[in-house]
């Protein structure tokens, strides 16, 4: 097998031109791509997470606020234990709730 003489040719001036290109490229600083997340200051992360937590808490409270309730169960969940004594009007509203009436005022008796 012939291997002593290389069969590969290159264009005229290839090696000289490539060496110039290599030195030019090597002299330039290597590009560092900064992550957009890393470029923010660290305290921003704390602010963002606190805001998210606050938003979640507000959302949860709004969802279970008594004014949004359509059933007694929701009202029961949203009313704190140390809340004011319900007014007659509120009490009447609760008593109209069938589920409450059946489960509390008419316990089941096995006959």
């Amino acid at each position, binding site marked *: *097998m*012939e291997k002593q003489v*290389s069969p*590969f*040719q290159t264009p005229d001036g290839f090696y000289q031109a490539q060496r110039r290109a290599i030195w030019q*490229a*090597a002299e330039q600083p290597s590009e560092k791509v900064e992550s957009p997340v890393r470029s923010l200051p660290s305290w921003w992360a704390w602010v963002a997470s606190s805001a998210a937590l606050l938003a979640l808490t507000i959302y949860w409270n709004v969802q279970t606020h008594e004014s949004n309730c359509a059933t007694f169960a929701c009202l029961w969940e949203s009313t704190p234990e140390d809340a004011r004594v319900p007014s007659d009007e509120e009490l009447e509203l609760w008593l109209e709730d069938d589920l409450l009436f059946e489960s509390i005022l008419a316990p089941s008796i096995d006959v």
Partner: protein
Amino acid sequence: MQCMDQWHKPIYEFLRTMLGNHEDAADATQETFIQVVRSIRSFRKESKFSTWLYSVARRKGLDTLRGRKQRMLRLAHQSPEQWSNHFTADPYFNGTEAQLQLHAAVQALPERQREVFVLRYFQELPYAEISQLTGASEGAVKASFFHAKNKVQEAITSFDTLNLSLSNPSNE
């Protein structure tokens, strides 16, 4: 840089035999030396400089092989005959018929065998250094070279058989 004068052509020819075309070999060679110049200070002298240089070139070559252009090239050229046509049409290939058959047979080898064959046969690196470069055991390197050499010889024989039958048509 003195090493560039000494190693520029060998590294180009190593990548040329790995990649099969001038453009890809030129790009990979340039990237190799850019990285070498940039990271020469991190060279720890735990291995020979040539081993380190070839390992950088090898990685650039492997990266190029995984690229779309090389994958398409190798999809279109799978047999030694197809590679022979490729080199015949290559304006930067100016070898004899025997060299054409040899390089065509080498390009048709599986990637790992081609790499070992190129490093051993063309670059004449010792098995120990090839083992260090590729991360394979010396035994595995020798086995790869053995199988590669057999396939190359088989391909060249089939070229000769084809040429013989073409030059001696049967008499009617």
